[in-house]
């Protein structure tokens, strides 16, 4: 009887094909075993057709040697390492007449088995194996002996070679590791070696990335930058150069640092994109996309207390403004017809659209849905699981914009055109994917309004929006308008969109409630989950207050700090945890948790803080002030000293530059119960008169209804 061993590394995509092949093997009198690396339960096969078993060595049964070998082996070799450690498989392959690899990953395992069972045929694929079975020929003893000798010698030689290669790799890894790169002599040697002439690009680039990585980890970013830059200058291929510099920048970003060579990497990618643009727009789009991924990385803008974008948008974005490919992404394509005026003979058709986040839309939707002269539709691009992926791919948008047309663009047209045809006005909340997609094609006669909040100004999406197809851009504060127009100069060009500053829609009437007397000593923060909220600034204020009066405490309202976004966030989270571990047991800090009833949570807060490094408006602070808490606002550093910021948005006496100043203001405002109550009442009156929806809605009426 012929025995057949089929090795499968992954569950077959065509199980019916396998079953039919097993039937054919059986009809030829063969006994078949299927050895699989995956769970054999995933391959329900009649035991009469074949014995099916898994041979993966379970995690707990892997010894140190196997773990180490699996750790460094390429994917296909792993399959063999598992097979070699399984006595059942060993027995089967030694006895088999025919060895069959069912998939590409199993080929190496079968290859190794065939070296050890020189009698068996070894085939890739079921049909070739069946043919071999049908045409089995007996080999001469001499031929088989020759093969046995060659196989045995090969096994020994390969083992020795593998060991030698491993030794060389280990040596090289150590020689280019952190220890050597932290040593000035080692760093000098490698920085010169990596720039030696006549080294092929692919070796030079690998070495450069390795050296850069080691130097960064050794805390020597300048050495890292020198090594990467020296190598890049010697690399001929624009693609490889961009790749080396990008990997170097990414390595530093992963460690939470602003890469020394950030702009070099961005420029290299954009140079590559510009050179590719005339002949391969897809690859050009991929290069621009990599440049934007670097420039929009959250480590640069969101998980640190500063951002190169807010410091000098022009300088930060200069490489993009100089690049043909990047400029093409936001090129004006215009529209055939201007937006039609608000209809007078029928209700205005208003499409309100967003992607996922509708937090700032509830009051707006409620107001206009209630109006007889407005017909409202709401579209969240995330809602439909079929079209959702279309809204999540910046690179697909870039590809379309550079190519001029694409199947992706056709799908967007098919998806959004009916909405554009229906709507008189499209109100796009957040200047991100939604805005880019609604301006990808000519919007017809629909008026397009885009509201930009804050984070978008630091992101790539606004650079994919065609503002020649946008009629109005709404900002929620003057300082965001300043930053956004610096980031997007096309907003202020002739024939650009109308620019509005309209406050966020907030129903503040729910917040004023009486507060207990001891609320006077309770500081509060609404939202502290990110580095940008800088809750440690609040803790600093609290420490200063408690030096004077231990009755002061801090309540943190909202979801816990999220330290999973990046290394800097993790580092910040560690320090915050340390603060909390010290202060919470003393009762000085309390985490209130997330709540749907913010007005109730604010009832116990006597002083509301805004400690963020940047805010577009800070609804949480304004809600706190509405509740009657005394507002204390840090002069948001991203905007401090500029024409607009916290100091121009709020009354001057609310704002403090330092924790000391903040503590002084709090001590003064809470010195007596009366002063505290009076200050709170005044703040509440101010915010209700200024920012309650009953007041601010007129701005939206003017915008949407032309009132």
């Amino acid at each position, binding site marked *: 009887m012929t025995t057949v061993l089929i090795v499968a590394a992954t569950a077959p*995509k*065509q199980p*019916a*094909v396998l079953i*039919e*092949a097993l039937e054919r093997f059986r009809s030829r009198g063969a006994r078949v075993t299927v050895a699989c690396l995956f769970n054999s339960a995933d391959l329900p096969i009649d035991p009469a057709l074949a014995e099916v078993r898994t041979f993966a060595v379970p995690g707990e049964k892997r010894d140190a040697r196997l773990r180490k070998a699996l750790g460094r082996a*390429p994917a*296909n*070799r792993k399959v063999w390492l598992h097979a070699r450690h399984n006595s059942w498989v060993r027995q089967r392959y030694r006895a088999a007449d025919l*060895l069959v*690899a069912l998939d*590409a990953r199993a*080929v*190496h395992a*079968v*290859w*190794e088995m*065939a070296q050890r069972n020189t009698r068996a*045929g*070894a*085939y*890739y*694929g*079921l*049909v*070739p194996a069946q043919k*071999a079975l049908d045409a089995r020929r007996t080999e001469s003893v001499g031929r088989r002996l020759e093969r046995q000798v060659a196989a045995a010698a090969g096994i020994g030689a*390969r083992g020795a070679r593998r060991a030698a290669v491993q030794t060389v790799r280990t040596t090289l890894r150590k020689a280019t590791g952190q220890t050597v790169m932290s040593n000035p002599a080692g760093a000098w040697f490698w920085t010169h070696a990596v720039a030696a002439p006549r080294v092929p690009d692919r070796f030079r680039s690998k070495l450069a990335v390795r050296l850069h990585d080691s130097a960064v980890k050794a805390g020597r970013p300048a050495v890292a930058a020198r090594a990467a830059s020296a190598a890049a200058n010697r690399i001929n291929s624009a693609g490889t150069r961009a790749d080396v510099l990008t990997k170097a920048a990414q390595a530093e970003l992963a460690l939470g640092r602003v890469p020394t060579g950030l702009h070099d990497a961005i420029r290299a990618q954009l140079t590559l994109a510009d050179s590719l643009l005339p002949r391969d727009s897809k690859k050009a789009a991929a290069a621009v996309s990599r440049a934007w991924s670097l420039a929009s990385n959250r480590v640069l803008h969101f998980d640190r207390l500063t951002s190169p974008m807010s410091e000098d948008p022009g300088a930060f974005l200069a490489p993009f403004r100089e690049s043909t490919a990047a400029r093409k992404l936001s090129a004006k394509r215009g529209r055939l017809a201007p937006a039609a005026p608000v209809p007078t003979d029928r209700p205005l058709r208003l499409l309100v659209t967003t992607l996922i986040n509708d937090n700032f839309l509830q009051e707006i939707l409620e107001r206009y849905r209630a109006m007889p002269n407005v017909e409202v539709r709401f579209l969240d691009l995330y809602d439909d699981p079929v079209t959702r992926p279309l809204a999540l791919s910046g690179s697909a948008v870039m590809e379309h914009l550079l190519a001029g047309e694409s199947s992706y663009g056709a799908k967007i047209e098919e998806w959004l055109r009916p909405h554009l045809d229906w709507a008189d006005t499209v109100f796009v909340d957040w200047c991100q994917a939604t805005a880019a997609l609604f301006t990808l094609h000519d919007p017809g006669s629909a008026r397009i309004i885009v509201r930009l909040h804050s984070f978008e100004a630091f992101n790539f999406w606004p650079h994919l929006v065609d503002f020649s197809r946008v009629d109005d851009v709404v900002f929620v504060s003057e300082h965001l308008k300043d930053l956004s127009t610096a980031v997007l100069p096309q907003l202020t060009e002739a024939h650009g969109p109308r620019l509005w500053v309209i406050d966020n829609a907030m129903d503040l009437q729910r917040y004023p409630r009486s507060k207990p007397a001891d609320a006077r000593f309770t500081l509060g923060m609404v939202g502290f989950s990110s580095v940008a909220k800088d809750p440690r600034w609040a803790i600093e204020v609290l420490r200063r207050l408690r030096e004077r009066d231990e009755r002061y405490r801090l309540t943190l309202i909202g979801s816990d700090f999220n330290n999973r976004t990046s290394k800097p966030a993790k580092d910040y989270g560690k320090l915050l945890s340390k603060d909390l571990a010290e202060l919470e047991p003393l009762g000085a800090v309390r985490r209130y948790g997330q709540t749907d009833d913010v007005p109730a949570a604010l009832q116990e807060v006597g002083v509301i803080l805004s400690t963020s490094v940047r805010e577009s408006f800070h609804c949480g602070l304004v809600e706190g002030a509405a509740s009657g808490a005394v507002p204390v606002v840090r002069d948001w550093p991203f905007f401090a000293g500029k024409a607009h910021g916290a100091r121009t948005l709020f009354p001057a006496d609310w704002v403090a530059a330092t924790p000391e100043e903040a503590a002084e203001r709090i001590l003064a405002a809470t010195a007596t119960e009366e002063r505290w109550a009076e200050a709170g009442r005044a703040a509440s009156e101010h915010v209700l008169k200024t920012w309650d929806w009953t007041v601010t809605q007129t701005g939206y009426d003017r915008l949407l209804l032309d009132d």
Partner: protein
Amino acid sequence: MSNRVVPLPRSGGGSRPHAIYLAIGFPPAAKSSAYRLRETANQFVALGWDITVITICQEAWEREYGLDHTLSEKVDPRVKVVELPLIREDLETDIRAFSEERSLDPAGWIKRLRQREQKVFPEPVFGGWRYELEAAVLRVHREHPADLLLASCAPYVNLAATWKLWEEHKVPYAIDFRDGWSLDVIGGGEAFTRDSVSGRWESKVLEHAVAVWCVNDPIAGFYRERYPHLADRVHVVRNGYDEDSLPDVTGRSPDPAAGLTFGYLGSVNFTPAFLESVLDGWRIARRDDPVVARSRFEVRGHIGAGPAREANRHMDLLKEAAADGVSFGGPVPKADLAATYGSWDALVLMLVGGRFVTSGKVYEFMATGLPVLSAHDVDHDAANILAGHPLWTGAVGLDPHRLANSFSEAARMALKATDADRRAARELARRFARPAVLGPAVRHLTELVRPTTAGDSTPAVAASTEDVQP
């Protein structure tokens, strides 16, 4: 490349002229182009030529499309065939022949192989054959000087060997381009630009070609537009059918109570989504039409190659459809074609592409005299060929509901068709019998390179930009 010209004595000293025919896919390869290649070679012999066919070894076809020795039976015994030991390494399935490197990363190994191949000649898979083909044509020419070289593409690497013989010995040549190279026949646009490596090869070789054959008018039109100065050398030489493939269809009276048998014969070279649409159409028709509900649908031909032979998504779809009366029966040897067609009541013509694709299948399907159901784009060249066929359902595209109507329509035609209808269908196809198509084309080539050997027949080409007329 060398500009050396070595004058060799031509065979035209009074004896038979000699043509070298680069025809990779020549019988016994069980490849659809084998029929065209065979008929071309036979026509040369019939016109008094010695012909040496250069193809690749039989083992190579075993790996890919398989072998059909019955195809060789109709090759004129005077045709000399040289089989080169060239084989597609990527389709190797004997793991003992793999290097360790290949076993560790089969896909990566093939990718690197492709890169190496394309460095030799800008054609994936076949580019690496360039030097062996060049050496082979030079060797054959040295042994038996040639008066003409005809290169049938694909593979396009044949162009390199063609050029080599021209460059070194100035042997006139013609290109049977069939589907064309710089044209994306499926997508309908340009496959590569004129200044790309492939583009430069194509324009260089076409420049000196005495004739360029294409299988249909749209492809010929593309080439005439791309190379206006060569327009008068571009000819349409259609594919055709072989008389011995046709079944006897007289006196048929299918029994509607027993249901009918629909058939498809050919390579399953379309996408799984395409096949799914046809099978969905079949299912809808079975739901709505009682005759189709009692009928069967047989698919015959090659599916996949190498390790994926008959082990791909197409096979899964066909197996899933077994419950709906669909079966897959593997390839059909040429000798069994007539019997296979004869066992069917209607044919399902599944074709990829659009206006630039004709395929050889359409002629054979048409000539059977059986009802033909079109499953292809509406704007497909097959629709031009089938126009006027009395038992054709018409092209409706690939919408399953419309295809379902076509299945019902084909069933009605199969039940109602008379012998007269079937005869009329065959008569319409008659002009596409292979000898009728290829005879004049080969005669024309003969006149171009040896004006006296074609006897006193009138010039075959009436107008230089039109078809080579039968």
